[in-house]
């Protein structure tokens, strides 16, 4: 997933980075095909080149040696609302057929079964970043027909990168459709993790497996303690 996400990034782009896999993906891209990627964290660090894998979005390693640190009012007003962010990464407890994301509650808002953390910056990232990439593992609980609570609208979702394949948003219908598969994965495997009848592009693209260099960077340099890499 980290490799596939990394390959979605174009050199020179300004990326709003979350913690975990998106952060890995961005730093992998910076060390391979996109050395001029500009990473912006919602904590206010711009152009960070962290010397260690940050555990939180406000890690001190994101500040030391960054190009700019600004207050959060500037992050949201001058960067995000201003339209300067080209790519935004989001995850979620639920992603629905239209690419909408829920990070607020499972069940009703008033009497939730599970109280999730809430929007954080996800609502405005989904509204203002020019292109949204979602990273999430497939499962029918995570990909329902409709989210219990709509935290982040799906309009700007470009791709959903999962552990079995990549979904794209059909610009006509707004629906997520299967666009590419990992080697050895069948359409039915993806359908098993999605709670609506999944349409598939024809022909389906084939995702290249990680190269030796990519694997080596991920395992030896970027996440040697396996904080985010599970395989």
């Amino acid at each position: 997933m980290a490799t596939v996400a990394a390959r979605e990034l174009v050199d020179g782009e300004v990326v709003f980075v979350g913690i975990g896999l998106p952060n890995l993906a961005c730093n992998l891209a910076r060390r391979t095909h996109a050395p001029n990627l500009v990473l912006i964290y919602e904590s206010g660090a711009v152009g960070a080149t962290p010397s260690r894998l940050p555990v939180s979005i406000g890690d001190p390693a994101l500040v030391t040696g960054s190009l700019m640190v600004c207050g959060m009012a500037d992050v949201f007003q001058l960067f995000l609302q201003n339209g300067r962010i080209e790519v935004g990464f989001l995850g979620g407890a639920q992603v629905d057929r239209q690419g909408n994301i829920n990070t607020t509650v499972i069940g009703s808002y008033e009497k939730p079964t599970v109280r999730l953390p809430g929007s954080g910056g996800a609502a405005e990232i989904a509204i203002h970043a020019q292109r949204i990439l979602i990273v999430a593992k497939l499962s029918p609980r995570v990909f329902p027909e409709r989210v219990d609570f709509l935290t982040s609208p799906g309009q700007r979702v470009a791709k959903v990168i999962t552990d079995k394949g990549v979904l794209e948003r059909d610009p006509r219908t707004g629906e997520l459709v299967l666009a590419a598969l990992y080697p050895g994965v069948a359409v039915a495997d993806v359908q098993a993790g999605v709670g609506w009848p999944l349409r598939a592009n024809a022909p389906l693209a084939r995702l290249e497996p990680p190269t030796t260099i990519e694997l080596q960077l991920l395992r030896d340099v970027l996440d040697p303690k396996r904080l985010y890499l599970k395989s």
Partner: protein
Amino acid sequence: MRDAVARLVRDGDVVVIEGFTHLISFAAGHEIIRQRRRDLTLCRLTPDLIYDQMIAAGCAKKLVFSWAGNPGVGSLFAFRRAVESGQLEIEEYSHFGMVARFLAGAARLPFWTLRDYTGTDLPRANPRIKSVTCPYTGEELATVPALNPDVTIVHAQRADAQGNTQVWGLLGVQKEAAFASERVIVVVEELVDERVIRSDPNRTLIPAAVVSAVVVEPWGAHPSYAQGYYDRDNDFYVGWEAISKERTQLADYLDEFVYGVQTRAEYMQKQPRLAERLRAGEQFSTGVNYGF
């Protein structure tokens, strides 16, 4: 710290302890727990461990927030138990919404305008998110109401005795929260001579004019951090998952590390290897010329 909290934080107050990951005043939160303040409305973008502890200790009546999790780790279970059982009132925004509330409060305007929330369920969950029509274009834009706390507490690297406060590294919304607030407590790693402040005036984030009290409390942000002083205690954040999950473990934690100490110095003495493990390395910036 004891005097500042006794004098400036009252039962029923709207209280803000700000700092985005960086510079969260755990020392002040612990003192508020020790002084058994009640019925507080706690506001913060990210309630973080400090509000999880204050909720567990029974200080909070209401929480105003935008992201309630343990960053990179998981849940805040005291918060979740309180919400899922209906014992804690909540008022929820996105980060931008909370930042905008502080901006309005700091500028003493009744509301702030932002492009946000279109297509989301947030305005349905929170009727205080409204809208306004642009007098030039006719567009409809989202609004949030000003947030003007009774008291705001911020941690900082250094201040002079008057309260002129300098911060570097992540700035969060501390400036806005301080200007929005009726009373402000600044907690610092170091009290410095006014000449240190005057030698680099562009670093001053909060001026004495808005500060009610300056408290010197080294390591007062632990397990949060202070750039240039000590690192974030990520192990503690990871460990909080297990403590927070069980009521009894959380109670034991509070008994030992909050109620069981009188001061932050005692808190540090209980953990003698903490300082050594977290003390910051050196990476100094170069001075700039303010001459003319």
